[in-house]
């Protein structure tokens, strides 16, 4: 057969002339379909290629479907592959046509060549046509038992594809148990890895509805399974290693010996050239040692060099990903990196997003010994022609100054910036000098000498202008020209576009007047007149306020406008430590790059296999909040609640206090009500500030505080209704209505904690004691559960909030009930049930 002539008509595949081309293809394919002439396959290949190239650039070639299928009755594997690709692309939207393909796919699944068996199986599963699932079960079953590892590998993923098409078909065919068997015994590591990923996905999705799936998911994190994977680590490809390491990072070892064993086993993974493997290993190390402060610190030391090597090997993109993680670690423990500051110097050809991270790190690691050099380096960047970079660098210098190291020299440097007479440098510096003066008023003399020389005409940016005006007002008595500069500014009132600047100008003139009345009187009069006439409401109001104040009593005005000020000791941090802890928990994920916890940027169903219900406060099972913003707020509130006390010991500020209270030893189940009440104070006082009203907890807790600990006198043995039921929304409503009857702290068996790796384990255990779990959530080490129980006779119900810290083995209970008299009895019952968890 002649070479394809049509190629002359369309020299470039990217510019097809339109539909005519497609119908041409159709006729040619039809002619070839039955042909057995030698060379047919080559011609077919050319035509197939054309079809696929159209497909790639988005031209609809679904009209040649039947011709493609007819032509693919061939033993040429290249042709087959192209056909599979084509079919995979169009089958979903042409289910009727897809039916045409199932025959030859079924046949190919039984081919002699394992390659063809595998390919056909993969294509069948990828069709994505729901009414063809019945045709998949047989081939998949055979595929999982195939003698060739390639086919088994494909089949393991195929099961997952089937599950997404029709979960019930997949489960009815008993594929998950088959996968589990294969996972635990197959010789081929890639088959094992594919079984693992498929099972993780299937069981995570099933876990919310099926207890068995939840148990199976927990099984993946059990010691024998985790050790099985660890022992086969070296057999896995680098990518499969990442999956296994992620699994291991979720495993909770029983004791420190186990932790060291695992770390020793994995240590050589840190030398891997693949950054993904190294970071996954680091995650294991960091998470396992979280409760061992010394070791944790050694881990930081150990991972420093490999991280720095990764930053400087790979492509700029890869090094950005690694650098983001390094950034996170530096921010958590700057002192460990303080001698490595030179690694964070910026290179001139680096993209801005990398430089920004490095500037942050330089700022963080600055201490007494390296500040001089760091600031010197930053000063070089300030002179840089790259304006955003210069601005960021000035801010960095300012931040270091505010950290209180060697302020003396830094103030000098900042003032030098003002002499550079570059507009953006001056503007940025003025803002900083203002903040600096708010913190270190003692530097006012030096600063003012320089600031006074700046012509306000050279400052245009509103923020900078406002800062300059603030200084003119605040230090009016030290700045000779202050009243006259302000006067000039007032004269140009109408040309000032920024309301912020006008507001500052009003206040500054006011302050200046209060100190140097004779010189400022005229300017003040003009400013007030202009202010009252201002179209901006805020400016107008402020001018009027000042006017009336002055009219009323000048000394009162002074007390209000210019009271003695205290230096600001610490400027507010932009990110809460809870947020930071949350990001750290999600090490080696996008959360680190975005510097946001995952719930802020992913949909719920995509939060990964082990991130279970976050929205405890709303008990989202039945009630979806209509307002997205409120929901987000609730989630955040919950985060804070759950993360109380997860701050690391080295970060002793903020909630660290609570952390130490949590882990304080020697509380046991019989702690007196007084003691636990005292502790409870700590927590509940925080809660009103961290929990937002929508959750409704805050008020309850306050009420709870007022309640006596209700020590009821020897109540009769309490029997619970084994078939108690309540729907989540009813529970939620009840929880809101009832006050806390009892709140107690107790502890849990460490063995029980080990079982906590699966969130479903405890609920199942409690169910055995007729106590049902309504909702659960949290991440190691803090878990939160809501339980529900009902008295055997009568309709009295017990609602329990149970917060378990798996690292300190402490449990916090809050019980609410309609029947106050039996709350103590119920509490004892609950605690005895809890204490059996893990020992059984």
């Amino acid at each position, binding site marked *: 057969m002649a070479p394809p002539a049509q190629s002359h008509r369309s020299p470039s595949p990217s510019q097809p002339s339109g539909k005519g081309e497609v119908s041409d293809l159709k006729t040619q394919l039809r002619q070839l379909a039955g042909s057995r002439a030698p060379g047919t396959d080559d011609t077919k290949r050319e035509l197939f290629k054309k079809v696929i190239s159209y497909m*790639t650039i988005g031209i609809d070639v679904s009209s040649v479907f039947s011709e493609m299928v007819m032509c693919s009755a061939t033993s040429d594997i290249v042709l087959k592959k192209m056909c599979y690709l084509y079919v995979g692309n169009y089958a979903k939207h042409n289910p009727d046509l897809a039916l045409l393909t199932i025959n030859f796919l079924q046949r190919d699944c039984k081919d002699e060549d394992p390659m063809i068996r595998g390919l056909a199986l993969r294509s069948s599963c990828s069709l994505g046509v729901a009414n063809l699932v019945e045709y998949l079960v047989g081939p998949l079953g055979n595929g999982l038992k195939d003698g060739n590892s390639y086919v088994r590998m494909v089949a393991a993923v195929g099961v997952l594809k089937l599950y997404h098409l029709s979960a019930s078909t997949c489960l009815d065919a008993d594929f998950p148990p088959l996968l589990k068997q294969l996972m635990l015994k197959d010789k081929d590591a890639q088959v094992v890895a594919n079984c693992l990923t498929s099972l993780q996905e299937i069981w995570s999705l099933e876990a919310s509805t099926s207890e068995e799936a939840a148990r199976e998911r927990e099984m993946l994190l059990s010691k024998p399974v985790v050790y099985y994977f660890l022992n086969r680590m070296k057999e896995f490809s680098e990518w499969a290693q990442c999956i296994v390491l992620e699994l291991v990072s979720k495993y909770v070892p029983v004791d420190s010996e186990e932790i060291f064993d695992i770390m020793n086993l994995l240590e050589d993974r840190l030398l891997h050239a693949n950054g993904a493997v190294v970071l996954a290993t680091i995650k294991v190390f960091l998470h396992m040692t979280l409760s061992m402060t010394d070791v944790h610190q050694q881990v930081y030391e150990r991972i420093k060099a490999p991280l720095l090597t990764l930053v400087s090997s790979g492509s700029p*993109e890869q090094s*950005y990903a690694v650098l983001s993680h390094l950034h996170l670690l530096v921010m958590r423990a700057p002192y460990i990196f303080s001698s490595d500051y030179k690694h964070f110097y910026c290179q001139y050809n680096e993209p801005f997003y990398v430089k920004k991270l490095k500037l942050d790190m330089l700022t963080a690691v600055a201490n007494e010994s390296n500040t001089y050099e760091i600031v010197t380096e930053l000063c070089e960047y300030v002179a840089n022609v790259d304006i955003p970079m210069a601005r960021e660098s000035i801010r960095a210098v300012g931040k270091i100054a505010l950290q209180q190291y060697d302020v003396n020299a830094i103030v000098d440097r900042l003032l030098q910036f003002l002499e550079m007479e570059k507009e953006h440098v001056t503007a940025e510096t003025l803002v900083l000098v203002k903040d600096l003066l708010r913190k270190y008023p003692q530097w006012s003399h030096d600063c003012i000498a320089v600031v006074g020389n700046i012509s306000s005409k050279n400052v245009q940016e509103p923020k900078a202008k406002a800062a300059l005006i603030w200084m003119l007002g605040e230090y009016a008595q030290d700045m000779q020209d202050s009243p006259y500069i302000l006067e000039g500014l007032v004269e140009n009132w109408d040309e000032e576009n920024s309301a912020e600047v006008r507001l500052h100008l009003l206040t500054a003139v006011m302050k200046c007047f209060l100190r140097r009345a004779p010189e400022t009187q005229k300017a003040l009069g003009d400013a007030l007149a202009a202010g009252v006439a201002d179209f901006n409401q805020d400016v107008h109001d402020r001018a009027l306020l000042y006017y009336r104040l002055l009219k009323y009593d000048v000394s009162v005005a002074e007390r209000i406008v210019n009271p003695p000020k205290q230096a600001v000791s610490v400027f507010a941090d932009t990110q809460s430590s809870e947020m930071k802890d949350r990001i750290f928990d999600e090490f080696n994920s996008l959360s680190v790059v975005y510097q946001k916890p995952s719930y802020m940027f992913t949909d719920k169903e995509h939060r990964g296999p082990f991130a279970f219900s976050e929205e405890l406060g709303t008990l989202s099972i039945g009630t979806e909040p209509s307002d997205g913003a409120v929901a987000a707020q609730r989630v955040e509130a919950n985060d804070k609640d759950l993360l109380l006390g997860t701050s690391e010991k080295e970060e002793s500020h903020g909630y660290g206090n609570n952390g130490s209270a949590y882990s304080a030893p020697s509380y046991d189940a019989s702690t007196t009500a007084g003691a636990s009440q005292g502790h409870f104070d700590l927590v509940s006082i925080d809660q009103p500030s961290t929990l937002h009203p929508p959750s409704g907890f805050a008020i309850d807790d306050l009420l709870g505080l007022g309640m006596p600990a209700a020590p009821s006198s020897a109540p009769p043995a309490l029997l619970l209704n084994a078939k108690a039921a309540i729907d989540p929304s009813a529970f939620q409503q009840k929880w809101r209505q009832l006050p806390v009857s009892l709140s107690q702290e107790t502890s849990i068996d460490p063995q029980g904690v080990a079982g906590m790796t699966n969130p479903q384990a405890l609920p199942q255990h409690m169910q055995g004691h007729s106590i049902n779990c309504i909702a659960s959530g949290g991440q190691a080490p803090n878990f939160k559960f809501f339980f529900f129980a009902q008295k055997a006779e009568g309709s009295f119900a017990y609602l329990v909030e149970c917060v378990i810290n798996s690292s300190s083995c402490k449990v916090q209970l809050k019980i609410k009930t309609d029947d106050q008299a039996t709350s103590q009895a119920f509490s004892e019952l609950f605690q005895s049930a809890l204490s059996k968890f893990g020992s059984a």
Partner: protein
Amino acid sequence: MISQFFVLSQRGDNIVFRDYRRDVQKGSAEIFFRKVKFWKEDGKEEAPPVFNLDGVNYFHVKVVGLLFVATTRTNLAPSLALELLQRIARAIKDYLGVLSEESMRKNFVLVYELLDEVIDFGYVQTTSTEVLKSYVFNEPIVVDAARLPTLGPAALFMQGNKRMPGTAVTKSVVANDPGGRKREEIFVDIIEKISVTFSSSVSYSSISSACLCSFADTLDCYLLEAWSILKRLGVMLSNDDEQGYVLTSEIDGTIQMKSYLTGNPEIRLALNDDLHIGRGSVPSFGYSGSSGTGAVILDDCNFHESVHMDNFDIDRTLSLVPPDGEFPVMNYRITQEFKPPFTVNTLIEEAGSLKAEVILKIRAEFPSSITANTILIEMPLPTYTTRVNFDLDRGIVGQNADFKESQKKLEWNIKKIVGGSEHTLRAKLNFSQELHGNITKEAGPVSLTFTIPMYNPSRLQVKYLQIAKKGKTTNPYRWVRYVTQANSYVARI
């Protein structure tokens, strides 16, 4: 897991597009491209390699001008996604010999075939060319490498007019030579990227500004006089080739291997006897000691998974069975002091109220047997510069200087610099406004980019490359090549 993978040309056309999970909209390629192209209104800032748009996470890497992109809705490990994209590019290059828009378009069916095996339903299966070989059946259509611009990887190893068998690097791992016979050969490349920052060459500027800012009127006259003396002194010093000292320096090296050997024989690579890994208690970036002893001290390194280090402690050899395709045997990082290949001298001096003169001097500090290629020297000039007249050394071909007015930047290109030689550029600047303050704060720093074949500043060596014989008489060709490139080579003024 990965939802989609696609490759876009520089213009934003889809070259290949593969949807694995069908949970991200079809138009994602276009959405992505628009976002990257217009990241910030002014177009100055680059889009970061990872960003989130409407719940979809986009990862991308740039390889030879092409954008390799992956999307996902899950909270995937970014290093995994970016590493994967890079590996996919490498696997494609192994197959096609040359990675370019043209070669991808000609071979897109092969690329699809590869992609099917690399990722299944969003999970990575393998990126090893070796493994892929048994699954992939299309024959690559080889693109003529000679038509490629000389900036390609092959050009790295040009030494003078002699060309190393660089074309072999652009040979497909799977395709046979026209004669049908495969040439047995193996390439080991030691590629070092160096970053050096020199401090400003004279110290008067810092003294002067310190003086200027902190003293009051009375002292001013005297100090200003002192300053001008210092300044003159500084000028004299710099005329005397006084060199800025090295502030920071780092070598990021890779031993890269590409094997075309049949039968996967075991290979032993012997490195310097005096090679040490880890600087022990020496603080990183410390410059004390060590330079005199001649030992090569790596701060840290990592290895390809095929590398066995059983004998490393005894005789500094690495043994491995190289898989097909190109891969890094070892990456290493050195902050130990080394002799920078170029020293730069910059002098910028006012010459009247609206004029200034810049003298740039660059000296090659390596042996004369070695030649550096494609040297580019750049220097930002004051923003009010309007015109620049250049005065180049006579008699040297292949150099030119230019003033890029839009970026206010001086560019000086030199094709070749022979070791030991020195080149000077004089430039007369004209300004649109009068100078105020210190001109050195308005210009610079000077940055260099260059390539030096057959030279590596770390002195890390492959002493021998042993290929375990498998009863064959033919001795495979072995190529061990060194090259040094500037990563960030900056001299402050």
